[in-house]
């Protein structure tokens, strides 16, 4: 048998991502598989995925300051723009990627049934939004800067201010959930969830710098957050079955 040329996704670098088990992050203890995940080369099942058109978006999905606010009102907090580009590991822009975001309000409180923090809810802030990247992989949304919040882990753990990001590229292999942090936040380097990431170099990738160029005078500061998803490349697919 001969080898078949095939476009597959190079294997994920699992030493770059946080490991399943990270003892200081308590929730990972009972939720981390003990066995190593088994490797196989991607097939059609991982190389395809749902496609999202702009019809899934509501007109205010990119504006968290307004999308839950009563008419004439707005979410309270520091107004910010978050923008960036989504590219793959081969520096190709990922167009049409669906980005879903969720976050605490400016006081650090989520609008969620199980949220227990005493900080106030903002009646005009829901905390979720969606955008789709354009032809060049660019995206942008506006929101209020979320506050840091305490969480039950160690005796006194505080999450750095962050925005959760869910990303859909063009295939299930690219599926990713991550968090964006803000340049200069001293809590980043004290957080057990951030600390699960093995290297400082990888952590830096999740820290969005202040972007004065995109700041709107007398209106909003801007932060830039670029995201890299897995990419496909031509490989030779060996026509034999390998033990996993």
């Amino acid at each position, binding site marked *: 048998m001969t080898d078949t040329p095939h476009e597959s996704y190079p294997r994920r670098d699992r030493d770059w991502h946080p490991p399943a088990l990270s003892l200081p992050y308590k929730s990972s203890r009972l939720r981390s*598989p003990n066995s190593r995940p088994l490797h*196989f080369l991607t097939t059609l099942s991982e190389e395809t995925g749902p496609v999202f058109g702009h019809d899934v978006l509501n007109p205010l999905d990119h504006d968290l300051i307004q999308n839950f606010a009563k008419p004439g009102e707005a979410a309270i907090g520091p107004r910010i723009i978050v923008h960036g580009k989504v590219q793959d*590991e081969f520096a190709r822009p990922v167009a049409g990627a669906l980005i*879903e975001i969720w976050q605490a309000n400016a006081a650090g409180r989520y609008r969620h049934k199980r949220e227990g923090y005493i900080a106030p809810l903002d009646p005009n802030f829901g905390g979720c939004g969606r955008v789709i990247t354009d032809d060049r992989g660019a995206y942008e949304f506006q929101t209020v800067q979320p506050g840091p919040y305490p969480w039950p882990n160690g005796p006194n753990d505080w999450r750095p201010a962050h925005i959760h990001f869910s990303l859909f590229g063009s295939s299930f292999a690219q599926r990713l*959930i991550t968090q964006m942090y803000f340049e200069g936040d001293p809590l980043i380097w004290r957080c057990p969830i951030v600390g699960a990431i093995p290297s400082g170099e990888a952590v830096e990738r999740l820290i969005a710098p202040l972007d004065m160029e995109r700041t709107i005078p007398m209106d909003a500061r801007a932060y830039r957050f670029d995201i890299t998803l897995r990419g496909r490349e031509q490989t030779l697919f060996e026509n034999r079955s390998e033990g996993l």
Partner: protein
Amino acid sequence: MAQLKESPSQTAGPYVHIGCTPGHAGLGGSDLGASMKTGPVQGQEIAVCGTITDGADDPLTDALVEIWQADANGVYPGTTGADPNFTGWGRKPTDEVTGEFRFDTVKPGLVPYPDGRLQAPHVTVWIVARGINLGLHTRLYFADEQEANGTDPILSSIADESRRATLLALPDGPDRYRFDIRLQGADETVFFDM
């Protein structure tokens, strides 16, 4: 060789439903992936239910599960010849009390493998939740597809044969399957790195 590193993953946390199923979280609107059918579909319509249990055998009541699969003819939605009324993609929160998830879908057909063989009917499953640092990929196969399962390139290459059973959804009444996922323990589900 890749030139850039993938953005590192972080847990979806306990409030993933705010962002991914805002309707379910009480924020209004309809949720993406809530329905996998947009009209009459081809093939056998089935329900797949299950739970995800942790190392203490407690069901995860704050998880998000996504599935992706071919249509009844083994064609992935978005490609030529696919069933126009089937999206192939489902997304569900686990029940906040019981931890149960449920997908109303169709039984997928055989799907091509890169070397020309066929893969047994299967569903790609992806799980995120608080405590999960990198989304978990697994596959659901059907216990009543013994012949196809026996020659499936992925399933049959799992060296530890006893673990293959963790990927089998069991018939549970007419047109109903049960797929329980275990994150730890003796019968820990096989997860994939692909």
